[in-house]
């Protein structure tokens, strides 16, 4: 231990100094912070692409992006960045890395070196993806559908594919690490049913990361080989089957949707209990529904393909299984609302984001049921209805949870407080802007406007203008959020060890925590939400 700082001042942030100490750190908290910085950077990039897209769509005809080719590139990079570099690593790798060992009362994750390696995989993968910009970029959309991606797309596509391949390893390593950590590094007395629900969310997510991502890896590898060698697996001109690619792709990418939302649900369980100072309603139901969602998620990929030309029987089976996923999701939502009942609720900014999550996720959920319904999806498939739906779930769900989570754990991460007023302002802008942006898109979709359109018919103009106006509000909201965070880091007031009065283990140690998390060995004698 360093002797220059007094024991009380000694923490993981000043344990070692200098950029090199960060780039080579094995401390899960520091790796978490590195993820935070990188994810925020990628989010900024993806957000700029989003605003470009919305500005282009403010009016029919060519606009700021000029032509379809450029628009399609912006659309592809928005999707690829947001999916592979923001939402997938967003909660597990950033918040999860910081919080999981603290939640379990562990000193670190099981494999600290792998943890660092997974951050480098993300960085290298991102770098490879951006390399494509030198080679004409990529215009396939983040889904890389064949045969478009094989012969017709711009030449940078193979770089995006390889970048996503490398970033997949980041996700696998994080998942593997978290499963082992959860199994082997729980503090004495921390039984499975005493774990905070965020841990259950991360654990379920990790299972999906470990089991689904390898299939994406082989799919992307085959796609790269298809482009470079013409192996003919997915190219109809060579006797291959382009629909098989979709099966392979969605076998990963549908479970990936739950990689994005399950940890967000975990964060929400933490926020709701802490800010209504009440034990969670139906702990086991929420915990098992996470596992249930993870399990069923592997068998619903075909609902992305109702009109792809797969067999009708397959469509029926996938529709039925998709309905089954709705049940555990509904259970969670009802349990969160029930947790509020007879609580003592404060509207601190993390709670605002949690309530915002519930609001938006409910809308995302019911529209999800509409999309799961066979005959409805035939109309809605690949229209703006789908775009609105998944933004309600991914942005309204996951990003709201990330923002809530950042504000919630901020005092623990940095030992300082951000400006509550500004945090609330960011919420108001994000929440309002979000609804203004995406609700009209449900209507556009019902009216039949297809997605990934550079140009549109006159009748869609007004709603698109509303949507574009909303997107600027979201942009302002996130900029305020960024300023709030940076300002809080620079000169926030000193935070106490447990500013929210929460009961989980991370709040029992110092803010910021010492290098090895706890200066004593935590003993767990009760569940995580014992507000009596």
């Amino acid at each position, binding site marked *: 231990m360093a002797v220059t700082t007094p024991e009380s001042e000694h923490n993981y942030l000043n344990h070692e100094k200098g950029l090199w100490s960060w780039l080579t750190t094995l401390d899960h908290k520091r790796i978490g912070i590195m993820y935070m910085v990188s994810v925020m950077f990628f989010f900024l990039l993806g957000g700029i692409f989003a605003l470009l897209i919305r500005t282009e769509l403010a009016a029919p005809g060519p606009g700021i992006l000029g032509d379809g080719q450029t628009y399609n590139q912006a659309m592809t990079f928005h999707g690829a960045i947001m999916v592979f570099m923001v939402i997938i690593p967003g909660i597990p790798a950033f918040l999860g890395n910081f919080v999981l060992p603290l939640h379990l009362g562990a000193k670190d994750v099981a494999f600290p070196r792998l943890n660092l390696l997974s951050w480098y995989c993300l960085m290298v993968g991102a770098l490879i993806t951006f390399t494509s910009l030198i080679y004409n970029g990529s215009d396939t959309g983040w889904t890389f559908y064949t045969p478009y991606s094989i012969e017709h797309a711009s030449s940078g596509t193979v770089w995006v594919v390889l970048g996503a391949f490398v970033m997949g390893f980041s996700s696998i390593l994080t998942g593997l690490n978290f*499963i082992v950590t959860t199994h082997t590094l729980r503090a004495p007395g921390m039984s499975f049913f005493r774990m905070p629900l965020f841990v259950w969310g991360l654990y379920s997510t990790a299972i999906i990361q470990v089991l689904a991502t390898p*299939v994406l890896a082989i799919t992307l590898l085959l796609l790269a080989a298809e482009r470079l*060698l013409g192996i003919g697996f997915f190219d109809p001109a060579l*006797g291959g089957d382009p629909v098989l690619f979709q099966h392979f792709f969605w076998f990963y990418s549908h479970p990936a949707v739950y990689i994005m939302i399950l940890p967000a649900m975990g964060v929400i369980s933490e926020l709701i209990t802490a800010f209504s100072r009440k034990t969670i309603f139906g702990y086991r139901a929420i915990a098992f529904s996470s596992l249930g969602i993870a399990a069923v998620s592997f068998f619903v990929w075909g609902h992305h393909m109702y009109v792809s030309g797969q067999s009708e029987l397959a469509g029926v089976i996938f529709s039925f299984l998709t309905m089954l996923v709705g049940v555990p999701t509904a259970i969670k939502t009802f349990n969160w609302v029930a947790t509020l009942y007879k609580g003592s609720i404060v509207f601190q900014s993390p709670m605002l984001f949690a309530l915002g999550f519930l609001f938006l996720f409910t809308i995302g959920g019911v529209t999800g049921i509409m999309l799961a319904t066979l005959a409805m999806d035939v109309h809605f498939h690949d229209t703006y209805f789908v775009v609105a739906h998944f933004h309600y779930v991914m942005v309204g769900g996951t990003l709201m949870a990330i923002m809530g989570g950042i504000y919630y754990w901020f005092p623990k991460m940095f030992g300082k407080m951000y400006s509550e007023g500004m945090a609330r302002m960011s919420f108001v802008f994000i929440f309002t802007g979000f609804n203004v942006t995406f609700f009209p898109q449900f209507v556009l979709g019902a009216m039949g406007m297809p997605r990934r359109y550079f140009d549109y018919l006159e009748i869609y103009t007004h709603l698109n203008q509303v949507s574009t106006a909303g997107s600027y509000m979201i942009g302002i909201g996130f900029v305020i959020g960024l300023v709030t965070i940076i300002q809080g880091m620079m000169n926030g007031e000193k935070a106490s060890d447990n500013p929210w009065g929460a009961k989980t283990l991370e709040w029992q140690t110092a803010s910021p925590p010492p290098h*090895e998390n706890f200066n004593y060995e935590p003993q767990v004698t009760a569940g995580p939400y014992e507000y009596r």
Partner: protein
Amino acid sequence: MSTGSVSSTEHHHAHHFNSAEHEFDASMLGIWLFLCTEILMFGGLFVAFFIYHAKYPEVFAAGAATLDWKLGALNTIILLISSYTMAMGIHSCQTNKGKKAFNYLAVTFVCGLGFMVIKAIEYSGKIGHGFLPGKFFHPHDATFEAANQALYYSFYFMMTGLHGLHVIIGMGLIAWVAIRAKRGDFSSKFYTPVEGVGLFWHLVDLVWIYLFPLLYLVG
């Protein structure tokens, strides 16, 4: 907090574990999970294989006929032997016989090398005939009835290539644990790396056990 300094007689477990057994359990769980990811990755390739095999059986029959099953069988035997020596290597480590472990691991390494040499002979034969994957498929001394015969060689090279890459990685890992075994790093108290490498090697072996009949025999 350094985990790098490993003395020859005693292994210091990393700071966040309670004991060496604790660390061993975590490592084993991690390795098994890693093997799961490997199986799923190869699984994707196998699924594609079965789909196209059902769709174009004649392509696969004609392709398999151009492979030499004797070389494939020889490679199967070599890998089976290597799995045995690998297991013995682990056993020797566990029973504190570092020198013996080194010998077993060295034999395993040589088996891996033998496998790759035979693979290289096979590859050069295929390349010589122009039996290359995808758009590089230009057979100059054979004719095939199916227009998309290249598909078979795409599968052949993708599957054996990915497997071969695993063999090479496995050989590197075996060389690493063999040297450590000779140095006396392993004992009945600490043999995690050699156990982990062993499991990986068995998986590589297992994948080949499936690849051999699928590519060479079923046709």
